[in-house]
């Protein structure tokens, strides 16, 4: 990207192709970190504990680390490709340039699906949390959670509508607080500061591996939840001041933060909560870190983790709206979806029509479906996306070997990460199959139907050559 001043205000968003109103380039690496970690950190506050239910506490730890390897591969591969393909739409744009249009359409839908579902899951959790607070403050009646669920989605959509800088700065602040809350909880309950309340040995006694090794496999399904969404950093590519540097940096710093947060979370929660309670995210522990704080007996910790949970859900929903709308916008811009969605707000410089359109969709899921189903659909879309990534990087390296185009970041040991990622994805497909085989098939059935719809109907509206926008040489083998 050499010596061009991409922060220039006069050229900003107005390039030679005739863009009159484009997205605003205002973000730095910290925003990228906040977008990536912000989306995911809620996974430590809720949802990951379904993995404990699937196979016990040890299984959840093994799944946590294997999923960590999976996501490290994802982050490495993603960083390399995205440091070269810097455009809103992230993996969608990568697929369009590297694999082909139909794959790109599918990847775009994976992204929108995964993020919108995750957004719905966050809103559900926020609503639940508010009802718990109502109960704690002595409200006797049954709180109606719906207005709060709707408020969360509406407020964050409004924030996103008004501009990306404020949105992600807000995310940076609340994500940092949520992360610090985990650190404080760890320090104050593990015995490092003051008295420890950890009793891993006593709590695990007799329940080390309640399902044996198949439980460990099954736990991989929800093991993804510790990190799901970190790949969303690439969606900011068109709004980052120097994408080739900030994206790899923010993404890799993000995955490191998450590996730490995930392990600490497992440690404190499994050391305090019995596994049957911890593992049941519906009837038992909906918000495990919050429940851990409740058993610590410290009012300060209860409030800190209560706010941590709320902030984490908000940060995540916020990032999801940001990412889903970017992907939807990018597909509209290329006419993969109706071109109407490819509009940018002339004052706020956001993809405003995509943001508005996805609000009712998120509401349908948040108000109409149970939490574990919503999470499963999000995970499945993510999983299909991670399966695409190794194919993507292998084709990328084959069509454009290292010396043919300049990359901002080159990941080491190729093709080892790609092969590892593919193997771990296969394992996770099996884990999902163990509990949610029907949904898996329904989901793939859905993608097959929309793929046919795209190939035989929708693709006629797409410009053939013009959709390839990167200044790359002709791919090898064509």
């Amino acid at each position, binding site marked *: 990207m050499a010596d061009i001043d991409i922060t220039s205000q006069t050229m900003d968003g107005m390039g030679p192709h005739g863009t009159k109103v*484009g997205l605003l380039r205002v973000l730095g690496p910290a925003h990228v970190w906040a977008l990536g970690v912000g989306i995911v950190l809620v996974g430590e506050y809720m949802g990951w504990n379904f993995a404990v239910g699937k196979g016990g506490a040890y299984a959840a730890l093994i799944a946590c680390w294997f999923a960590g390897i999976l996501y490290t591969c994802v982050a490495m591969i993603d960083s390399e490709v995205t440091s070269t393909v810097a455009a809103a739409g992230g993996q969608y744009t990568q697929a369009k340039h590297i694999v082909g249009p139909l794959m790109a359409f599918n990847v775009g839908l994976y992204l929108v699906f995964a993020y919108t579902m995750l957004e719905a899951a966050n809103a559900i959790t926020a609503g639940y949390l508010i009802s718990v607070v109502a109960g704690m403050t002595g409200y006797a*009646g049954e709180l109606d959670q719906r207005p*709060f669920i709707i408020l969360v989605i509406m407020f964050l959509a409004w924030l996103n509508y008004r501009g990306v800088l404020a949105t992600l700065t807000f995310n940076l602040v609340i994500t940092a607080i949520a992360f610090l809350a985990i650190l404080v909880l760890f320090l104050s309950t593990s015995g490092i500061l003051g008295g420890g309340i950890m009793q891993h040995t006593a709590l695990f006694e007799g329940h080390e591996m309640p399902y044996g090794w198949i439980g460990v496999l099954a736990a991989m399904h929800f093991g993804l939840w510790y990190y799901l969404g970190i790949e969303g950093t690439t969606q900011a590519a068109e709004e980052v001041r120097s994408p080739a540097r900030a994206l790899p940096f923010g993404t890799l710093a993000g995955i490191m933060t998450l590996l730490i947060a995930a392990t600490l979370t497992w440690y404190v929660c499994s050391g305090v909560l019995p596994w049957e309670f911890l593992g049941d995210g519906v009837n038992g522990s909906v918000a495990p870190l919050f429940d851990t704080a409740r058993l610590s007996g410290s009012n300060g910790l209860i409030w800190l983790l209560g706010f941590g949970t709320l902030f984490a859900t908000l940060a995540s929903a916020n990032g999801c709206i940001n990412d889903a709308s970017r992907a939807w916008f990018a597909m509209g811009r290329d006419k993969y979806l109706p071109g109407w969605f490819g509009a940018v707000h002339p004052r706020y410089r956001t993809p405003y029509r995509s943001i508005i359109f996805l609000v009712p969709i998120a509401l349908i899921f948040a108000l109409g479906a149970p939490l574990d189903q919503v999470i499963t659909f999000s995970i499945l879309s993510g999983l299909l996306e991670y399966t695409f990534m190794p194919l993507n990087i292998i084709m990328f390296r084959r069509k454009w070997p290292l010396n043919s185009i300049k990359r901002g970041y080159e990941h080491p040991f190729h093709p080892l990460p790609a092969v590892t990622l593919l193997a771990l994805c296969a394992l996770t497909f099996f884990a999902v199959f163990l509990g949610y085989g029907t949904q898996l098939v329904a989901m793939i059935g859905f993608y097959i139907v929309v793929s046919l719809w795209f190939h035989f109907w929708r693709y006629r509206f797409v410009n053939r050559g013009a959709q390839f926008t990167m200044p790359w040489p002709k791919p090898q083998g064509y």
Partner: protein
Amino acid sequence: METWQILEYVAWGVSALLGLYMVIDWMKVDSSYSEDVLTSSREGELEAMTEEQHR
């Protein structure tokens, strides 16, 4: 009426206001700018700028 019941109504109200704000702004923008300007964003502007400079 209890505080939490009031908060429920406040949440409904604020949600409606935020929704209304977005819809009204959307209508205003759509009617005061031409569709060509609004959908003029193209992918890969940064890359295209770099390319032009190196030509």
